[in-house]
């Protein structure tokens, strides 16, 4: 009888732990679905863009353009490489303009 009682207590604890874990997962998935739906609605409504993301992407572009130019500087002089740097800097400036226009501070 004692063994049976011990067994049932452990099985019950085990099931409760799994249930708790699965409930948490289900809640997280629901929250994710809600946020996705909210994002889609915001886009359909033409609401403001995601400025933190836009800023981050603009920063990425400019960081990459600087890396490209730093690399070009270390290479033997070549008009094609110089053009790559110039092009990258132009893209950085355009990205900054785009972010500024969409996300005025």
């Amino acid at each position, binding site marked *: 009888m004692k063994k049976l009682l011990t067994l049932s207590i*452990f099985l019950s604890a085990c099931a409760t*732990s799994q249930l708790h874990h699965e409930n948490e997962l289900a809640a997280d998935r629901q929250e994710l679905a809600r946020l996705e739906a909210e994002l889609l609605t915001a886009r359909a409504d033409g609401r403001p863009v995601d400025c933190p993301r836009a800023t981050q*992407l603009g920063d990425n*572009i400019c960081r990459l353009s600087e890396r490209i130019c730093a690399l*070009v500087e270390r290479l033997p002089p070549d008009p094609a*490489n110089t053009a790559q740097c110039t092009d990258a800097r132009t893209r950085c400036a355009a990205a900054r303009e785009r972010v500024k226009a969409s*996300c005025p501070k």
Partner: protein
Amino acid sequence: MKRLLALVLLFACSSRRPDWAVTVAQGHSEADHLLDSGNRAGARAVLEAIVAGAPDTGGETRRVLLQDTLFRLARLALDEHDAAAAARHADAGLALGGEDDLFVANLLVVRGAAHEARGESALALDVYQRALRINEALLQKTVSPP
């Protein structure tokens, strides 16, 4: 006997394979803590375990979680001046394919850095240009949603 029973039950309870996505989230969090405490080798082991434990299927979720983990492994390798390992991790992530999204762009950046570290400047330039174009396209989508 009771102790044995308890151990068997506890093992059965804990051995049920948890959702891999949850394992990944926990692993990344653990890696963050380990890095904060200066334990780079520990963080690398945790991230490598995530990659090793990846399921064979899982679609886009599997792809992005693996690519993000491989990106972190590549960055760790670069921090340790191991360009070969960084290139290996980045290539493994890029081989998973996918859209031109931020996960792919991040992998291209670390791939470019690995080329740079090995003195392969022309290849690095090419890869950085690809990463820049992806970021540009993503920015365009972000500021001009459909």
